[in-house]
């Protein structure tokens, strides 16, 4: 018979070390988040999509509580139940009530999260308002072509067969609007408090149109035109980043987005851009 398992044994120092290690991770994790909240956080919000920030914060609180609770529990267990003397372990291993509780309670929380997520998702992908400003963004290795409609609000037809050095996105010359669409590189201007509707395309590979300050991201997929919309509400200059690996120049694919303070400022700026 083997009595070694019940032999006197003192794992308490090890238990304390491991418990302290877990508590250290807990402290470092929480502490780093507290520090990060001041220095390494989401860039300032410049659109009305603050609801996603609120959602983010809510999830952070909930997951933070879970992170703290699990680590505390484990640390306490490690310290309290380190093998000591001949004290045996318990033998119980089932408890339907406990199982149901910790299934249903997280499930309830997650259902609430899912409902909120669906509501916000539907909002993000709702149809754009009628007064939205139209812009087209075309990704290409490794820059963003931004095309502004003519004064009549139309974007000219395009066809890749017309692509040339002077006509980078292939405007169809037989379309009268092709003369009055302004095509710029990496320079997107929108109007404060006016919805903007962006048609996103790509000429070559998949890129991703990412506006960090606006909480906007949409892949630019060749062969498709994908329309998104949002409402900028903070004048200023921000950046466009590419968020899908598109080749060796992926890291250079920066654009600029400027929120003009009002429609007049935007019109003035656009008039100065000249035409295609």
């Amino acid at each position: 018979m083997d009595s070694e398992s019940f032999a006197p044994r003192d794992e308490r120092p090890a238990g304390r070390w491991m418990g302290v290690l877990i508590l250290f991770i807990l402290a470092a994790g929480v502490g780093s988040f507290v520090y990060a909240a001041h220095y390494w956080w989401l860039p300032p919000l410049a659109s009305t999509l603050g609801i996603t920030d609120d959602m983010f914060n809510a999830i952070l609180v909930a997951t933070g509580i879970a992170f703290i609770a699990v680590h505390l529990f484990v640390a306490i267990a490690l310290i309290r139940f380190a093998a000591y003397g001949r004290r045996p372990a318990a033998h119980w291993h089932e408890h339907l009530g406990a199982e149901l509780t910790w299934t249903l309670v997280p499930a309830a929380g997650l259902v609430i999260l899912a409902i909120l997520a669906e509501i916000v998702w539907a909002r993000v992908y709702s149809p754009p308002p009628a007064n939205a400003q139209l812009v087209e963004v075309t990704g290409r290795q490794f820059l963003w072509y931004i095309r502004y409609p003519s004064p009549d609000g139309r974007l000219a037809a395009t066809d890749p067969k017309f692509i040339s050095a002077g006509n980078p996105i292939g405007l169809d010359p037989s379309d009268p609007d092709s003369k009055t669409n302004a095509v710029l590189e990496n320079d997107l201007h929108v109007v404060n408090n006016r919805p903007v509707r962006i048609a996103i395309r790509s000429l070559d590979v998949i890129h991703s149109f990412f506006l960090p300050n606006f909480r906007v991201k949409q892949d630019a997929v060749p062969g498709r035109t994908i329309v998104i919309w949002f409402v900028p509400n903070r004048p200023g200059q921000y950046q466009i980043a590419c968020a899908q690996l598109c080749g060796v120049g992926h890291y250079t694919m920066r654009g600029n987005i400027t929120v003009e303070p009002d429609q007049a400022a935007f019109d003035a700026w656009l008039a100065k851009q000249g035409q295609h």
Partner: protein
Amino acid sequence: MGAIAVHEGAAAHEEHAESFVRHYIFSIDHKTIGKQYYLTTLFMAIVGGALAMLMRAHLGWPEGGALDPGQYLAAATMHGTVMIFFFLTSILTGAFGNFLIPLMIGARDMAFPFLNMISYWTLFPGVLVLLASFFVPGGPAGNGWTSYAPLSAVSKFAPGSGTGQTLWAISILFVLFSSLFGSLNFLTTIINMRARGLSMGRLPLTLWGIFITAILALLSFPVLTAAVVMLILDRTAGTSFFVPPNLLVAGQVLANKNGDALLWQHLFWFFGHPEVYILILTPMGIVSDVISTFSRKPIFGYKAMVLSLSAIGFLSFLVWGHHMFVSGMSPLLGAAFIGSTIAIAVPSAIKTFNWCTTLWQGRLLFTTAMLFAIAFVSLFVTGGLSGIFLAAAPVDIYLHDTYFVIAHFHFVMAAAALFSIFAGTYYWFPKMFGRMMDERLGKIHFLFTFLGIYATFFPMHFLGFMGNSRRLYDTSIYPFLSHAGPIDVFISLSAFMLGAAQLIFIYNFFKSLLHGPVAEQNPWHANSLEWAAPSPPPHGNWGAALPVVYRWPYDYSAPGAAQDYSPQWQAQPVAAGGSDG
């Protein structure tokens, strides 16, 4: 020692006079094949780790120019490919599965030993092809392990889309076939070759993990096979499954293409999501067994553990679209994936609570294996919780393809799954090699690895919050990332420490292999059947008679027993106050 008919003398139950080649190279013994997998995947882990060190050497000091952009992307791609396919996927089932299944079920070998040998020797050429791709013009593939089309389908789009990409695809096919052959074996063996008395309800959770993993692999790997074959055809035969019309390539418009870029993503992620659960289910099983053994306490909620493993396996097929929330996929479809993705958090939570509860009122023994298993719980919780942000699709819009995602999957894969592999190694090393690993070195390895893992990957959450995209060679062009520099340095230094700590493990592994103290049959006083065999088991595992199983493997600290464990193969647990003759 119990009623098992281990005929110690008769274990000189003939050594076949096998040639070196038959015995060690083309062996059909599952234990040898398991060790072959282990050593090969360990080597690939070192390759993948070295690539990570290269990446971090560059990212910490980008102006230093350690790598040029093409090399950086190649390193990132190959790091992911090697680690996911050639390390994690192959070691969990190929090494642990192969070695343990027949021993844990009381069989002499797998159902199809010859196929088992073939499955290892199908992996090996895959390794060679992938390593060869480093040396072809244009270098290895550089489009991420996810290899999105059309970037990966048209050679001219990037230097990393050349021959290296085709070789990448071919090597993936080898891994997929190797794994499929293995899965057939695991499934059939577990279903059909269990010892008398070993019902499915008495299987250790390690085997439940492997079993469900094998089912997932059988159903998902063929889908990636289809996608990769189609990609190879697009690259070499002029088809256009994934190449949309009218692409601008090197100034020319590509004619006669009518494909769909999103088709690649759907096929890839239909495989890709079950794949990542394949990489966590076996670890969950291993950790359950290790925690139970070293708490001297039955795993809490065995049935719930099995049900949750099954639920995770089932649900894993319904969530792939959460990788594609901003891909241009219909938002309605996206809405459906929100629901299924959030649902999959529930069974994972159940498992976490069950591990924690197992510890409570246990009699905890802090062996190295146990330390890694406990740390798994912490890492899995961290990684799982970050997944919730990503499941909430509106939040994912911002976090998609940022370092937040990198943090998430490294915590669950590179950290949690890796720790289960370490736990399993320290735990089963005595059985595999007949020697004990050095516990002191193990604990030092553990400490620096645990700290190093958190230090390396936790700050990546913050980079993600800042909006730092993935696969960026350099962030200096983005003013909104100007604060990222110090974080990158910290991560790189931590990564170097993490990498260095693994040298302790490698040293310990090989030193113990050659000079470790001889292991007894059941050094951990564990219950599951593999501990009934000698350490290491001989050819045929069991001597003249196969073992018989009398109970489940979690009968620890039963009240009234004289020992705190009742092995599965022992007919009567020794009662207190009696004598056992």
